[in-house]
Structure formats: structure tokens, C-alpha cells
């Protein structure tokens, strides 16, 4: 697609990538329908609460050090501030840095919903500029400021010329897309629009889009062997560093859902190659990813040397644990950037995937191709995995777990793990995006799986004492029973 950095609004994933939030079927059907363009979204007549795209957008931007996010919204939305503030300070402390990034609300009241409040927002911005001296200011809209039609773009234009720092609009009205990952795109667009500068020179740097960089050290060491440095995005990055990401040798990403917009845009706008392999999870993913990096930056020999050395250390140990995992069954419920990747990893460990649920589905990425992890599964999965696009709907997952009674449930979103345990099913929270990264991650992940199935005390204790929130009626239905037929 054509990326336009001269406008502040971008199309949602539904419009841009044909993304859907409702589907029930299997792997082969989903991939085939994607390829021939016949895939239709199914709406639900019942939903449970999930996630807002604004949390994704603002969460990403607040990772940049020493910036301000002005959030034009009533007080409830500003609850993203306390947790984000602490998290970002903790993450900065881990690398010996500090961050002075703030998220400041406009505390809109009823009067503002009638008359608007851009004058007050202007004052808040000026006050924030004086108080905190941020290196950039993002002005984020919300459901309320969006519905009443506040003209944030004009305010941004005025302030951008008045202040000596970038002032950037972030259109993250929560009602705009059912897919919260649209928020990632919105934050990428804001960075591209307001901060990234056209390249002047190439630098030996690889952009690394991730969430919380827990393997920063390991990745820095691996990249050092290839003669390059990682530029992690956006946690702990600075405005000055972001100005130069157009000069990097390549962009890589830990999660396809997170990286598609920035990766493809940097490639199209500035010729920075975007690495589009499966993600570096498990042995297969990690090697495919690293080899592609080697090819793109012309360091294949170094990559092969690294792989040979590390394989010798880790593969025998992984094989040892794998013997005990073979034959286990699992259900997965995660964002689409992880579901298909984790399915592959589980298959590598000899675990059968009984059902894979992804919260949404991008049937093509921004390069118009289907996600590589699905392509891989289509060609390599030993069976045609049952699959749904479940929009984080807990009732569907619990129904699936009740029907398939797997040995394990793998989840990745806050608050989702406990429900499996209450049904007596061991659950693993794959929260850290690097939990299965590379050989080392694969080994400790395999061990965690083994520990989990070997001691089922916690889930047995809890399951024996709790009531489930769903009715018997619901457990007797098919898990897709509340999906509506076609739009």
C-alpha cells in the first residue's frame, strides 16, 4: 500500500488489511479463503469486554523516553498513565537510564462534550511543555473527543510551529476499530509522521520492534557478532534515535502484528528492508529469521558460525526435555502475531495443537501477503488444526477447553490464564514476548511446560473449590454458536 505521512489519519486494519475478528473453522480453510479473497468476517451477537486500541497506541508512544502524551479525554481513559509510568521507569532503570515521559489527561466533563475544550487542551500543552520540557508532544484523541469532532489536527498545526519540538496528532478513538492492534499502527504512523527524518547515510543498525526488550542483552550480543547494533523500538528509545531509524540496514520484529506497519512503511518510504520470515520463536523460527537477517545485511557466514556453535550447546538439551513432552495436547488463545508462531513451536516440541484461537486475523500484512507463520503451518503442520478468530472472547475459549480438555492452555493476555485453571486445565502465560526466543528461550520454555504438567497442584486445588461463571446451557453449545452468519 501507499504510506502517506502527510496526513495524520490512517485506515484501520479492517479497511487496510481486511482483518476480521470472527471466524470458526480450520487452518486449511482459513488459508485457502485468504488466498482467494473470499474470507468474510462474522460478527457476534454477544461479546465480553476486551481491549481498546488506544491502550496499544499510547502504550507504545509512552515507551519513548522524555516525551509527553496529552490525552484529550475524560478521567477514565487516563488510567493508562499510572501503570505505564511505573513500567517505563522500571524498564529504563533496567538499562541504567531514566525517563521523564508523562501521560496527561484533559479530564473532560459534560460541558466539554457540548462546547468542546480545545482551548483548555492548548493550555494543558503549554503547561506541560513548561513543566516537563518534553522532546516531543503527542496529542491523543479519544471516543469522546472524536465523537464531538474536536479538531485536534488544527491545534497540532498551530502548536507545531509555535513550539520548538515536534507536536503530533494521534487519532486513537476507541470506537474506530474492533482490532486493538490498529493502535500499534496509529503509534507507528505518529512516529513516522512527526519524528522520523529521511535518511542521510546508512548506519550499521537494525531496527528491532518489540514490546519490553527483556532480551536486550542477548540480542545486542548476537548482533555484535554480525557487526551491527540493535535499535529497540519504542521502549527506551529517544526522539533523537527515532529520527534516524530510516538509516538502518533493516527492520526486524518480534511480533508480526506489532511490526507490520512500521516495517513495511520504512521499506516503502526509505528503502529499509523489512525482514518477513516467521518470528524468531523456537528453533525453526529463530534460524529462519537469523539467516534472513544474515542474507539481507550480507553476514551469512557469521550467522552460520553462530548457529553451528549454539546448536551444539542447546539442541541436545532441548531434545532431552522434548522426550517427555511428546504426545501432550494444547489449546492456544493469543493475538495473531503469536498464535500461529506458538503453534509451530509446540509442534516442534511434539505437542499436538487441538485448537488455535487468535484474537483477530490479518489476512494479509501491509505487503499484501498472508502472515508467514500461517504459510509455514499450511505447508508443514502434521494436521489440519482447528482454528478460530475469537476476539479475546473468554466464553468461546472456555467452551473449547471444556470440549477438548487439553493438557495445557497457552495464553498471552492479562486475566486470561486463570479461567483455564478454574476448569482444571494447566495454563502457561506466554507474556514475555521473548519467552521462546532463540535456543535458550526454547530450552527454558520446554522446561516450563514440563514443570507445569508435572505439578498440577495449583489448578487442581483451585478448580475443586470454585464455581464457573458460565451456565450449563453455554457449555452445551458449539463454541461458535453466537457468531452471526455473514455480514
Amino acid at each position, binding site marked *: 500500500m501507499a504510506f502517506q505521512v502527510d496526513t495524520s489519519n490512517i485506515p484501520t486494519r479492517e479497511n487496510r488489511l481486511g482483518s476480521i475478528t470472527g471466524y470458526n473453522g480450520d487452518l486449511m480453510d482459513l488459508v485457502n479463503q485468504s488466498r482467494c479473497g473470499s474470507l468474510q468476517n462474522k460478527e457476534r451477537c454477544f461479546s465480553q469486554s476486551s481491549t481498546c486500541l488506544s491502550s496499544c497506541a499510547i502504550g507504545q508512544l509512552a515507551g519513548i523516553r522524555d516525551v509527553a502524551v496529552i490525552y484529550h479525554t475524560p478521567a477514565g481513559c487516563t488510567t493508562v498513565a499510572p*501503570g505505564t509510568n511505573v513500567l517505563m521507569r522500571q524498564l529504563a532503570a533496567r538499562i541504567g537510564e531514566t525517563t521523564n515521559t508523562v501521560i*496527561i*489527561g484533559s479530564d473532560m*466533563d459534560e460541558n*466539554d462534550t457540548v462546547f468542546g475544550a480545545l482551548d*483548555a487542551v492548548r493550555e494543558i500543552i503549554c503547561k506541560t511543555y513548561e513543566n516537563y520540557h518534553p522532546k516531543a508532544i503527542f496529542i491523543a484523541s479519544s471516543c469522546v473527543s472524536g465523537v464531538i469532532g474536536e479538531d485536534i489536527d488544527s491545534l497540532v498545526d498551530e502548536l507545531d510551529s509555535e513550539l520548538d519540538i515536534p507536536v503530533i496528532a494521534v487519532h486513537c478513538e476507541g470506537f*474506530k476499530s474492533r482490532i486493538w492492534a490498529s493502535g500499534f499502527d496509529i503509534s507507528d504512523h505518529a512516529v513516522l509522521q512527526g519524528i522520523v527524518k529521511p535518511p542521510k547515510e546508512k548506519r550499521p543498525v537494525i531496527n528491532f520492534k518489540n514490546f519490553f526488550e527483556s532480551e536486550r542483552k542477548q540480542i545486542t550480543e548476537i548482533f555484535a557478532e554480525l557487526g551491527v547494533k540493535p535499535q529497540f523500538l519504542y521502549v527506551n528509545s529517544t526522539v533523537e534515535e527515532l529520527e534516524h531509524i530510516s538509516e538502518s540496514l533493516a527492520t526486524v520484529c518480534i511480533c508480526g502484528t506489532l511490526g507490520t506497519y512500521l516495517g513495511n512503511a520504512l521499506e516503502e518510504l526509505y528503502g529499509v528492508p523489512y525482514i518477513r520470515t516467521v518470528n524468531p520463536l523456537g528453533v525453526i523460527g529463530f534460524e529462519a529469521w537469523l539467516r534472513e537477517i544474515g542474507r539481507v545485511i550480507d553476514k551469512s557466514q557469521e550467522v552460520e558460525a553462530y548457529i553451528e556453535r549454539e546448536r551444539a550447546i542447546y539442541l541436545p538439551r532441548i531434545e532431552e526435555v522434548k522426550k517427555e513432552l511428546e504426545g501432550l495436547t494444547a489449546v492456544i488463545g493469543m493475538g495473531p502475531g503469536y498464535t500461529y508462531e506458538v503453534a509451530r513451536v509446540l509442534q516442534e516440541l511434539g505437542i499436538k495443537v487441538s485448537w488455535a484461537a487468535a484474537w483477530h486475523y490479518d489476512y494479509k500484512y501491509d505487503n499484501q501477503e498472508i502472515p508467514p507463520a500461517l504459510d509455514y503451518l499450511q505447508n508443514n503442520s502434521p494436521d489440519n488444526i482447528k482454528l478460530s478468530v475469537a476476539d479475546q472472547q473468554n466464553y468461546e475459549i472456555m467452551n473449547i477447553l471444556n470440549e477438548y480438555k487439553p493438557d495445557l492452555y497457552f495464553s498471552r493476555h492479562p486475566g486470561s490464564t486463570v479461567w483455564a485453571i478454574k476448569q482444571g486445565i494447566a495454563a502457561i502465560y506466554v507474556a514475555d514476548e521473548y519467552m521462546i526466543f532463540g535456543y535458550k528461550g526454547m530450552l527454558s520454555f520446554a522446561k516450563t511446560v514440563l514443570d507445569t504438567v508435572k505439578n498440577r497442584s495449583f489448578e487442581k486445588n483451585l478448580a475443586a473449590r470454585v464455581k464457573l*461463571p458460565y451456565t450449563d446451557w453455554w457449555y452445551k453449545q458449539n463454541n461458535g454458536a453466537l457468531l452471526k452468519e455473514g455480514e
Partner: protein
Amino acid sequence: MAKLLDQPRYKCALAAMQTVHSITRALPILHSGPGCAQKLNDNLGTSGLFSPNIFPCTSVSEKEVVFGGNEKLKDTIENALKVIDADLYVVLTGCTSEIIGDDVESVTKEFAAASKPVIYANTPGFKGNNFVGHDWILTAIFDQYLKETEAREKGLVNIFAGIPMHDPFWLGNLRALEKLVSELGLTPNTIFGHNRGIKNIDKIPQAGFNLLVSPWVGLESVQFLEKKFGTPYLHYPVLPIGAFETSKFLRAVGNFAGVNSKRTEQLVAQHEDEYYYYIERYADVFLETRIMSKRFATVSDAQYSLAVTKFLVNDLGMFPTRQYITDGTPEQYREKIMEEFKNLNYGIEAEIQFSTDGYQIHKEIEQADFAGYPLIVGSNWEKKLAQELGGHFVNVSYPVIERLVINSSIAGYDGGLKLLEDIYSAALTKLSL
């Protein structure tokens, strides 16, 4: 008018979904955006039976913004009744559904004959914060769910205090207050937490009186109960922490309920005896911690700013610098609260300021004279400030991020000891001398 909300210490009215959530087997149904519940549940813990992942939600999207969301709400309620096993369904509105003018009342009333009660409350975020939202929810439940009754139970007292889940000690404090009230020979009735819930809501009209322990939050709903059932209420503004305030509290409640004063005095004596057994044992710690000065600041909601100030002044002999109240206390309650801050032992008066500008509050505290090491009691926002000032910090109010509170309490005699543990533990991490 929109205003600068830096370092938020409250959420919006919809966050009062947590009040519903804390009533066992009551379920919020949200007519809001898909992520409102997740954002607003930013403190640790759930009700156990339910969590925001379970809350039915209309997930208002562009389509509803344009065409209205009444139909979607109807579908959602209908299916919620089929899919989720609850005993009371409470529909709450968010900002968008209110702005587009959905008729939640009419839709909810279509379910008047449903197998379980379905009620509603208007809680758009732009109409107020979660401190007032809590009161709206309680009023809605009392108004739409409770039936008139002639039955009265002698000695039954409904107790309401800090708002569920937002106040980290809400449950522990409520249990502590229940215990104190029952020791006076009365029968406490509360509706939140384990083994209370709807059966206790049913008993509310039978109470002899309502006891509200709070500077201002919750006043509307007890006044509503007075209007609807003629139940009198005792509005006790100070959450009692430590011996001085708890004894005062017992006397006030005993007096209001007509408890024999001899019985009350016996109870007070017995508690103070035990409390001072502990204080005596650790008094040297309080006297000799060399990095503790006499002065403190609180930056908190009206409840804890007032309660902690009373405790530290009246029990421990400390001095207040300027105190800050950050809960957006409505104008009409402010004067009474200020009066309470002037009512301290030895004629000591604390100056207070109502503010939501965290930056400004911190700037002032940086300039304040603590005559030594500052003690700052407040929200997680104050942690960094205390570190920068070399002071001590205890997190008692929202946001609570870097500590886990399950069922502990800082109310009553034991609660005072618990708060002392927290304060002096904070000091000991800096200098164990």
C-alpha cells in the same frame, strides 16, 4: 471545564463497575467501548467469580456511533442472561453510548420479567469520577432492586466505607469495621466481598440505621435509603486508625445506637490495653529511628488524607505539613472536611489543599519544611518524590502498583499497628539503625 489531570488518582464514573463487581454474583454489563473495563480495572485482583474478561460488553463501534446502540444492548443483555450465571445484572453506560443518546432505561426495562433482576445506572465518564460513580451505583441498586418492607431487625447496622477495589484496603477495612460494630453488640450488615452479596442487600431495608464511614463518598446513597425506607444514618467522616480515633469511633457509634456506655467503655479499655501492649514494646523504635522526623504530608483521597493525619497526630504525636486531597471532592463537602482537619489534639490544625495537579503538589512538597526526613503517605505517584527528597513513602491509595494488598487493613486498633509496620519498614530499608 477540561483541566490538567497530571498523575491521575481517580478514574471515571464507569469504574464504579468495581462496586458491582465486589458484590458476589452481581455482574456489570457494559454499554461502552470494548476496552473500557480493562483500562478501569488497573488494580490487582478480581471478584474471583467474574473479572473484566467476563463482563458482557456492547463494544460500541463506529456502526453504533452512527446508527445507535439500543439493539446491540438488547442482544447483549439477552445473551448475558443465557451465557453467564449471575444473580443480579447491572447495565452501566460509558461515554459514547450516552453521547449518542441510547435509551438504556427503556432497553433495561424490557427485561423486567427476566429470570434474574436486570437494572441500570448511567455512568458516563464525563459526568463524574469513580468516587461519585460508586454512589450512583449504590443508589441505582437501592432504587431499582430493593423492595419496600415493614420488617426490621433490631440492632442491624448497614456499614459502608471506602470504595471497593479502588481503595486497596477496602475489604480489610470493612471487615475491621464490622468487627468493631459487632463488639458493641450490634449486627453489622455489609454487601461487599466473601459471603456477603445479594442476600445482604436484601437485608438493607431492615436495618436500624446506616453507618457511613467516609468524609463524603457514599453520602447520596445513604440519604436515598433514608428517603426510601426511613432509615436514619450516622455519617462518621473519619476512618478510624489507631487507638485514639478508634475509641472515639466506638463511642460515637455506641452512642448513636443507644449501646450502654459502660459496655462501650469496657470494650474501649480492653482494646486500648492490648494496643498499648504493642506500642509499649516497640515505642523505642518509634522514638529512636534516627531518620524519622516529626513531620509528614499526605497526598490522597479525602478518606486517607484525613484518617492518616488524625492517626499520626493524635496517636503518634507527629505534625502535619500541608495535606493534599486528590479525589475531586465536590465543592459542597469541602468545608466540612477542612473543619475536620482543624480538629486535632493540642489545637493543632492542618492546612489542606484540594488539587488534581500532581506536578504542582509535588513542587510544593519539595519546598515544604519537614525539619528533617519527610514522611509522605499517598499514592504510587509519591514514591519517586519521596526518593528524590530522601524521605519515606507508604502507598495507601490509588494508584497502588508496586505493592500487593490482599485482605490487610489499616482501620481500627490493629490497622494502626499495621500502618506503623508499613511506615517503619519503609524507614528501615534506608537505614537500619
